[in-house]
């Protein structure tokens, strides 16, 4: 009986002796890997004093899929598709980073049309990713309708991607050497329709949340991350900018034609959840500006490099031209061989600085592909952020750093 009684009593996991014989008991709860608001399979081991976080320890790896190892066994041409699966909310941003890295290894330059199209697609992807972030982080704080509104708009973007590539999410549409196919007819009109529609919808989100007293109370001054800590802990993206550091790879190290466009970087000041929220909200505005400019300047012409060793020949040529058939065969069976060397290409994915470190040994497969995943680095700041906060703030903090576990664990 005695033992049974003990077995059914909640255990005190940790305790601390206070003065005067009093004792403070701590409770450990496991937030995740199955939890509604850890955005996947993040596991947080929280030590609580009442509802206050005393200690938080992230435990990751539940979604480790060995993408870096997988890529080592595939040709450059085929390793592209595994990059889609990392940050599955922004596959085109991953494609872009990978393609730029491989192109740098190869030493090739893509045509203008591909450059502009990539910028349009990457910015659309940024908006789509931010929409998922906005929806889920609002949902975490209990504002459930925003979630579905955001997904409604994201659907429009995914439809555009489907128009381009036939796939909604894992498009692999941006590839080393340009695009998989030319932008389809109607693409421009669809994007322009979206550009006309989205500012109104963005305004609605602002109306629903930005000045909402409950929302402000839940996010303002919560889970602060001072700028120097954000830098020391390697945060990038909106997590860093929310703390007041104006670092955006698109501006600091322009890549893929971003230097041609006029846009601003929203930067916060307080480093709290609210600032990170606003930074992302304003980033969507800026993305619209970039898309508008890129769309206006979108040139015609080829969308792939003129090198049959790198991009597959058009299908009609394969069936009529011997040389094209050989290229086709060589590309799909063996691939291309960049010269030996190593490159690190940083891009600004929706989550932060996405770096591809590619090592080539001169063979047809990447000798090593390492991904500097922004979510992985941003996650390091989470324990610091939520120290001393409430359980309810933890979900706000997780939402505000916008991690995708597919990218954290790779």
């Amino acid at each position: 009986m005695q033992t049974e009684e003990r077995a059914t009593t909640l255990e005190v996991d940790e305790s601390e002796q206070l003065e005067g014989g009093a004792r403070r008991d701590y409770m450990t709860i496991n937030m995740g890997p199955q939890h509604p608001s850890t955005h996947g399979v993040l596991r947080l081991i929280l030590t609580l004093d009442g509802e206050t976080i005393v200690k938080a320890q992230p435990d990751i790896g539940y979604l480790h899929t060995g993408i870096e190892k997988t890529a080592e066994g595939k040709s450059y041409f085929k390793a592209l598709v595994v990059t889609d699966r990392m940050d599955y909310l922004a596959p085109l941003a991953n494609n872009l980073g990978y393609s730029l890295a491989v192109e740098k290894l190869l030493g090739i330059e893509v045509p203008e049309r591909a450059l502009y199209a990539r910028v349009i697609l990457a910015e659309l992807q940024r908006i789509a990713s931010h929409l998922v972030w906005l929806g889920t982080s609002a949902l975490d704080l209990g504002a459930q309708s925003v979630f579905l509104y955001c997904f409604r708009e994201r659907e429009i973007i995914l439809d555009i991607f489907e128009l381009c590539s036939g796939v909604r999410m894992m498009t692999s549409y941006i590839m080393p050497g340009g695009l998989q196919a030319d932008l389809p007819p109607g693409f421009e009109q669809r994007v322009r329709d979206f550009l006309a529609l989205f500012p109104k919808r963005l305004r609605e989100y602002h109306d629903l949340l930005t000045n909402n007293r409950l929302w402000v109370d839940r996010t303002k001054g919560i889970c602060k991350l001072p700028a120097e800590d954000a830098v020391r802990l390697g945060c990038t993206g909106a997590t860093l900018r929310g703390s007041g550091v104006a670092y955006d790879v698109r501006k600091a190290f322009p890549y893929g034609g971003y230097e041609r466009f006029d846009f601003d970087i929203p930067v916060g000041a307080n480093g709290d959840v609210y600032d990170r929220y606003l930074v992302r909200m304003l980033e969507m505005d800026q993305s619209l500006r970039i898309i508008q400019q890129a769309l206006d300047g979108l040139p015609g012409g080829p969308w792939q490099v003129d090198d049959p060793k790198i991009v597959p020949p058009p299908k009609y040529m394969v069936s009529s031209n011997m040389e094209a058939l050989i290229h086709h065969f060589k590309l799909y069976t063996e691939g291309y061989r960049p010269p030996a060397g190593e490159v690190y290409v940083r891009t600004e994915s929706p989550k932060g600085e996405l770096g591809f470190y590619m090592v080539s040994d001169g063979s047809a497969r990447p000798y090593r592909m390492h991904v500097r995943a922004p979510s992985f680095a941003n996650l390091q700041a989470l324990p610091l952020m939520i120290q001393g906060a409430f359980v309810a703030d933890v979900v706000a903090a997780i939402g505000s750093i916008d991690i995708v576990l597919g990218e954290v664990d790779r």
Partner: protein
Amino acid sequence: MSDVAWIVVAAVVKSAIAIGALLTIFAYMTLVERRVIARFQRRVGPNRAGPLGLLQPLADGMKMAFKEQIIPTKARRLIFVLSPAISVFVALIAFAVVPLGNTTTWGTSPVAIAWAPFIADLNVGVLYMLAISSLAVYGIVLGGWSSGNHYSLLGALRSAAQMVSYEVSIGLALAGVLMLSGTLSMVGIVHAQVAQGIWFILAQPLAFVLYAIAATAEVNRAPFDLPEAEQELVAGYLTEFSGLRWSLYQMAEYINMITVSSIAATLFFGGWTLGGLEGIPGMPFVWYTIKVAIFLFIFIWVRATLPRIRYDQLMKVGWQALLPLSIINLVFTGLAVALGWPWWASGLFGLGVLLIVAVVLYNRLRLRQAMERQSGEAVPLALPSSVRLVRIAPATASESGDGVVAAPAAPAESVTTS
């Protein structure tokens, strides 16, 4: 048959009808809520089971009934099994004093009065209601504690604190109405409104607003659904419950919603009356139902719109805003009643206080916005913003030809730290 026997039979039959009706309404309430929320969110909602999805509650009930009812090994079995029942029991008996029509609906003979459309007209009806609804916390606290799960425990504790805090405000807010009507009987209060020719919402607007907020918290509905905050505590006190036990808790929640809506309708909106139209046979039920339905709709509407409040903020609102306001209302209503002032005196006073609170809140928000807004920059949206747009000069493109590009723009402007 003697009158006493009739009264007993009538009470038993009416209770059975009330329980049956409440359970049916609960079932359809879930359907209505899902459909309405779906509309808010531009979805369709459940519409597959039966015409318009009308059989959905049945399907849900079947599923729940056949689900495995898990009792965790760490649970205290007896309490774990009992606590959902406590919740539902308490929710059901609270409904006993809600009047759906006048005492004399069916006539004035003792037998007709025994069949009047409410189970009991207690002379301490409001008090009884308050007493019973504060018992509801037992079901939740015991259920959460006995689950042997940390999340459940946190949910149960939140619930206990929340209910204790808001119970006080509810009681004090309702006291204003009681002073005006001079009775605690629910039927008596409706009669008092008819006699004075007004709905008490007009005399007690402040009390109604306070009651509406506190009652939402009392029944754990969004934005005060902290005890079962899905995104924070998985499901709070409900985490370990499954199958029918889980649906018992849901049942209790929805019946509580109906009960607090009924109180609001009865105490502030004249119950079954509607400017004399209640004289038409059968119409009292309709008026009553319409009033309650409007409140239930507002519950759903709020849930679809607002984010969840945080635990400490909830406590702050309860003790620092609702409680003082309800005391102010109580004192002034007491004065007005004692000095024999007409009803609009307290009504104007209540409106005035509400106006002041609104202005204060609005100004505070405005002030914060003004303090934080960046000067100068024309921001496309008027944001209460600590966020500024940083202009970074675009790096000059590499046409210099010598292979060296100008330095990538250094992170421009000041790197501010807070």
